[in-house]
């Protein structure tokens, strides 16, 4: 079972969207699809599972990010 595509909601601090979007732009395998208030809808598109997991860890450690929550994951053999 592989799960190569994972969408996440990234929760951020008030007024930090610009800074966070800038930080996310520097992460290779994450795409931002929308932002509403303090939440960013993004998709992690990892070449392998470790890449997805590493991106999650990077998200947790990103300044102004208060949480990252997967909402959908899918995969194929």
């Amino acid at each position, binding site marked *: *079972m592989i*799960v*190569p*595509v*994972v*969408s*996440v*909601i990234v*929760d951020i*601090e*008030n007024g930090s969207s610009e800074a966070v979007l800038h930080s996310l732009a520097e992460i290779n395998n994450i*795409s931002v*699809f*929308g932002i*509403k*208030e*303090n*939440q960013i*809808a*993004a*998709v992690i*598109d990892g070449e392998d*599972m*470790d890449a*997805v*997991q590493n991106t*999650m*860890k990077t998200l*947790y450690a990103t300044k102004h990010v*208060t*949480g990252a*929550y*997967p*909402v*959908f*994951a*899918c*995969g*194929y053999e």
Partner: protein
Amino acid sequence: MDISRRQLLKYSAAIAAASAIGLELPLPKNAGAVHVEKWVKTVCRYCGAGCGVYVGVDKGKVVAVQGDKDNWNKGYLCIKGYYLPPILYASDRLKYPMLKKGGKFVRISWKQAMDLMVEKFAASIKKNGTHSVAFYGSGQAYTEESYVMNKLFKGGLGTNNIDGNPRLCMASAAVGYVSTFGKDEPMGSYDDIQHAECFFIIGSNMAEAHPVIFRLINERKQKDKNVKIIMADPRKTLSARIADMHMNFLPGTDLAILNAMAHVIVKENLYNKDFVGKHTVFKKLVDPGPPPKVTKVAWDEYVKFLDDYTPEAAEKISKCPKENIIKAARMFAQSKATMSFWCMGLNQRTRGVWVNNLVHNLHLLTGQICRPGATSFSLTGQPNACGGVRDGGLLSHLLPYGRLVAVEAHRKEMEKFWGLPEGRIHPKPGPTAVDIFRGFNKGEIKALWVACTNPGQSLPNVSPYRKGMESKDTFLVVSEAYHPSRTSELADLVLPAALWVEKDGTYGQSERRYQYLEKAVEPQGEAKPDLMVMTEFANKLLTALGREDEAKKMFSFKNSEDVWNEIRECSKGTVYDFMGMTRARMKKEHGILWPAPTENHPGTLRRYTLKYGDPLLKKFDPQAQDISFYGAKADGNKATIWLRPHKGPAEPVDAEYPFALTTGRQIEHWHTGTMTLKVAELKRSAPDAYAEMNPDDAKKLGIKSKDKVKLTSRRGSIVLEAKVVDVPREGLIFVPMHYPDRLINALTTDAYDALSKQPEFKICAVKVEKV
């Protein structure tokens, strides 16, 4: 728009994320065709938060997962949740019954396994009496499974030798609620998060242990700048990231802090006189017993009791600055609505019940209770500790739905309900978790069935109990989805269990929310749903004991819905009443909060308040105008404010063992790791246990991160890699509890709370050496 499969997957994922925050993305051609034949509504397998989940099934396998956005979690999952599918397909899934022969496990048939179990249990009962057998269950088993085993042991066999692992995680919270409010379980719900202005979080690392509930709090704080968060914990965990104030204190001194907060509230006249006068009584313990002797006292005596807990005195005991105690007390009392959360940091203590009482005290003193946003809320570790074990009465002192084995009227009620002769249910509470294994060690219990849990790793002071489990003089059956686990390796017989969506049943979770888990795929190999195995065993065991007619009458269930319907009837007329939760309704809806006495009742967000919709309040207290703690009938439907003095841990630090050891969770893993450590990505992310230490302590001992350190308690030792980080306070060592090859419970103490019998996993004394 023609798109590749990968692009399609990515876009499907994006739509899910965007829709979760209320954005709409245009649908691409073929969107939704993610090679999923059907989506099945279910619930996450892990913690007690109870996140709604859909699993995508393709060709008989679970291939995808998404959060249920119509459920309370609004589609969000934590990192463990989105890696759920691989737990079903781990290479060590147990597919056949296995019998230990000559020290090795060999495959046998189900018939052989069942015959052997029945023979061993029946022989022991005939030779040594009914109290020579026992069952150790789980807060992860489905409600129907726990109910059937409870009915068999307490009703069919007339022994209360049945307990479960919630004794290790929730018992203090349960006894805390019962001793304060008369009945178990929180009165509020997650909906209160949307109304609270102050969150008091103590003894809980929510960001890692209950991430999706933590997200709701975070979201609330982001939306309203008036919202304040107080975090009280000896570690600066990830949860402290969003806190306005972190109250850092010496492990085991929180009773002093909570009493000092009450002291400030009383001295500064911040308490709610009207509420206290109308809805509370005061009590203190005068003799610990057993049985404990309690007396009612007056307000003045309570105020005098609090004189010992000035902020200065509490600072001396706890090292928490008095300014923080005063500030926290004011924030708690003065906010428009205060909501408390706690978990194992309070429960897994020898004073677990007392410290639970002290949190409730603050709510009762200030009237921060029974209205939106004002409530005291115990978080739950396992997905069905509340529903299957606390509510269902699987613990050795309980009968279903708030009844007690020690109360004659309750026994008679259940004997009548189960169609048993009067006097069948034994009046004495049975042994609790630790004592079941002590009894097994001593040979007082000859045959033990452990289902859906891993005591060979999770019991405190585990080493001597492991020896008992391995003994050739007793018979240990373990029902497990994986083999070997640290328990199944010790068993005589291992039964393959269907896991999660390989069977159907009901979970009852933190906020009294009951949810139905539909079967989505077939079990692996010859694995069976535990309910099927338990029902067959009950029938065959009673038949072997010469009670075939009784067996037929008691255990004629054809499926889980039959059991569920009996459970609903059993709850009827109690404070739990969920007659309205039919199986058909639960399949359709996204969880219902009890009480829900009729099929058109929507469920109850807040109990004990007429104004906010408790449907049972007038039934149990017809005179009540609004608030009534009707579970506490003997106290005139009033809740109790307890005088509970500060007492430290059972094993305080000393010159020989100068550090306090505490155990807990990491975000990637859950409990003993039988599931999450099978997910390669989670394992790679968090591969091993470590000893987390404060930089000042490390410096004094000449220890750097990644150095090997030996932790030694009075019971055992372990060598781990050091992680030097400014998270634990000075004098505290934290070790995650998940790793089967690192039995941290070889060090923990099995001393337990006198009232709840819950062991003190959270604090024991250790020494630390660089190796």
